[in-house]
């Protein structure tokens, strides 16, 4: 293992331990709930970026993968109420398999047509869930979260810790992919798929890998959703917000590195949380919309790209 990789994994472990220590020190539940939402977007944006940023396949169906994770958990909770880690595994598995299926679509669909197919997938899944009465159907269902959990004083703190851990793992996965031959292969696919194939890049395998890992991470992010919101129904689980935010956050942060979605999700997610309780919700939507338009026009490489350019200029080099 390289020195850089060791250092990154140590930092990841420290962050997870840090998240646990925070729960022993801080009481205010608002910050846990707000942080949960921001961290959830860190996972979704990072997962989206593995397919959209690294490989160049734009997925508009984030809400579908997220909701499949959430509804897999709901189905299991209704059946035998397994512990949360099993819900995470199963949510990830189901959405990962869904991602694998979408991966095969890339054999025939590229560019905007692939994006439309992912959006359609989310709509179809929403219709299916709306008609599946076991998980509440269109009417939705209330989910009782466990009253207590060992080591934590309440379930909100536990959910925060779980989502923080998932976020750290997601970013670590994105980092590992980016720094390996897989990441370089994905970048080759993004730049020119035909040329990559001619050069011997196993494009189908890599695309399937990207769609599966991306889908699985989104499913894992969705698995604890029903415990967080307590009442789940298709309109909120499949909300377009998830698709828009998970796309906007990497665009704002930068799509070509692991740090872009992280920076985008933390900044935009935090701004949204603040706007929800201070400004009006129109301002909330305006924040995302304006930032997205601004970054696409003026900084297409996102914040990370922008800072890179500034740094280069300051160092007296061409950007």
């Amino acid at each position, binding site marked *: 293992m390289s020195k850089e990789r060791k250092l990154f994994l140590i930092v990841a472990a420290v962050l997870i331990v840090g998240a646990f220590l925070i729960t022993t020190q801080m009481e205010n539940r608002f910050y846990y709930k707000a942080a949960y939402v921001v961290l959830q977007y860190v996972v979704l944006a990072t997962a989206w970026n593995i397919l959209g940023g690294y490989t160049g396949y734009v997925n508009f169906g984030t809400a579908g993968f997220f909701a499949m994770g959430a509804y897999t958990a709901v189905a299991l909770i209704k059946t035998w109420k397994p512990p949360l880690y099993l819900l995470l595994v199963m949510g990830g598995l189901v959405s990962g398999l869904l991602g694998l299926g979408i991966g095969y679509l890339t054999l025939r669909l590229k560019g905007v047509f692939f994006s439309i197919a992912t959006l359609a997938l989310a709509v179809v899944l929403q219709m299916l869930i709306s008609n599946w009465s076991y998980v509440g159907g269109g009417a939705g269902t209330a989910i009782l979260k466990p009253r207590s959990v060992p080591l934590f004083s309440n379930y909100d703190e536990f959910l925060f810790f779980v989502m923080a851990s998932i976020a750290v793992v997601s970013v670590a996965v994105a980092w590992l992919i980016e720094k390996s031959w897989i990441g370089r292969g994905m970048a080759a696919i993004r730049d020119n798929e035909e040329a990559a194939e001619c050069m011997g890049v196993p494009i189908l395998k890599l695309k399937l890998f990207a769609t599966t890992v991306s889908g699985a991470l989104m499913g894992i992010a969705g698995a604890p959703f029903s415990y967080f919101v307590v009442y789940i129904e298709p309109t909120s689980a499949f909300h377009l917000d998830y698709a828009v935010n998970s796309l906007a956050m990497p665009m704002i942060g930068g799509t070509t590195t692991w740090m872009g979605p992280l920076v985008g999700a933390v900044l935009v997610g935090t701004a949204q949380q603040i706007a929800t309780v201070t400004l009006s919700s129109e301002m909330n939507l305006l924040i995302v919309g304006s930032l997205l338009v601004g970054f696409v026009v003026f900084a297409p490489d996102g*914040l990370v790209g922008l800072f890179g350019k500034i740094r280069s200029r300051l160092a007296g080099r061409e950007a």
Partner: protein
Amino acid sequence: MGRIIRHVILGFALLLAVSIAFTPSAQAAKEVKIGFSMALTGPLGPAGKAALLAMQIWRDDVNAKGGLLGRKVKLVYYDDQTKPANVPGIYAKLLDVDKVDFIVSGYGTNLIVPALPIAMERGMVFMGLFGLDANAKFKYNNYFQIMPAGPDPIVDWSVGFFELAAKQKPRPKTIALLSADAEFARNAVAGARRNAKKYGFKIVYDKRYPFPGTSDFTPILRAVKATNPDLFYVGSYPGGSVGIVKAAHEIKLEPKLFGGGMVGLQYTAIQMNLGKLLNGITDYWFWAPEKTLKFPGIEAFLAKYQKEAPKQKLDPLGYYLPPFAYAYVQLLGNAIEATKSFDQAKIGAYIRNNTHSTVVGKVKFGKNGEWATSRTFQVQLQNITSNKMSEFSKAGKMVVVYPEEFKSGELIYPYAKGK
């Protein structure tokens, strides 16, 4: 890399500074703060804004009389954007940052349920605004819901429609059921299905239409007409209700009793849109300007509401939700005054064990914090001659035909006769 991290931290610090700048400053200790989330944008936004206005009128009324136990009332609220996922964070902020003294719910089942466990964990009284059996799983004894749907809301919702039908001579035999494919409508029709069996009506049509997304109801109603039902029970949302009424007139669909669970026919804008087409329809209702429903305080409240609503472009008459939005905080305020206490347990016990006088009439809570008995009216729209707003502010247009206690006129039967 180090510079990037520094810049990120700087950005984060700026955001925090903005948040602190916009956070309401420390409030006067003497105020009683009532916190809630409300749908001020999103699909329920227009109704949520009307509810908020009603609550503000109550606050002003109470403060004009010196407040609650000598402390002025302050409402602390945030827009949940009609998104359930926003609700847990909002209530955590209300309780842990804003330190409100009481919490009440936002509007609608989906936005009530996410806040209920938070109220439970803190042992707080939680007043609900138009939730349909939201407490069924939690069974929290300090939850009280103001919509008069009754202890078994899904069945009680349509019982009046079926009792009316069963009384008619010759007794109708068949029924068609149509529902939008979403929460409330499906529940309403599920209850109607059970009532149809209970009262012995044969179901000849029972289908759902996609919601949202259906705009042309003509083919659906042609299929209903082909079954020639005596009764036609519809569970629909505002847009669909308008489409269904118009399509029924277009193809001359004339069951003997038509309506039931059509949301939107109670809204002034839709009433003005449909005008005479509403005549003869029998639908669920919560309040109308009929002589049997002049509860103490309702007219004074509506006068204040109707003065302010046009300025804010809200439902100008406000008969549907606003009186209940006023009543659910009025009831909480009355309980505080009666117990002379801000103790949540005492107030909860008082609300649970007494009958309360509000602008929507006498309220007594029963199982799961729902009304002890259903008071869902069946109203038949009669004698409407124009699309003017004044048409709908008069008595004799929205005639209460069920239950007997509040009846203000007779049902015109069959529907075709009342058209």
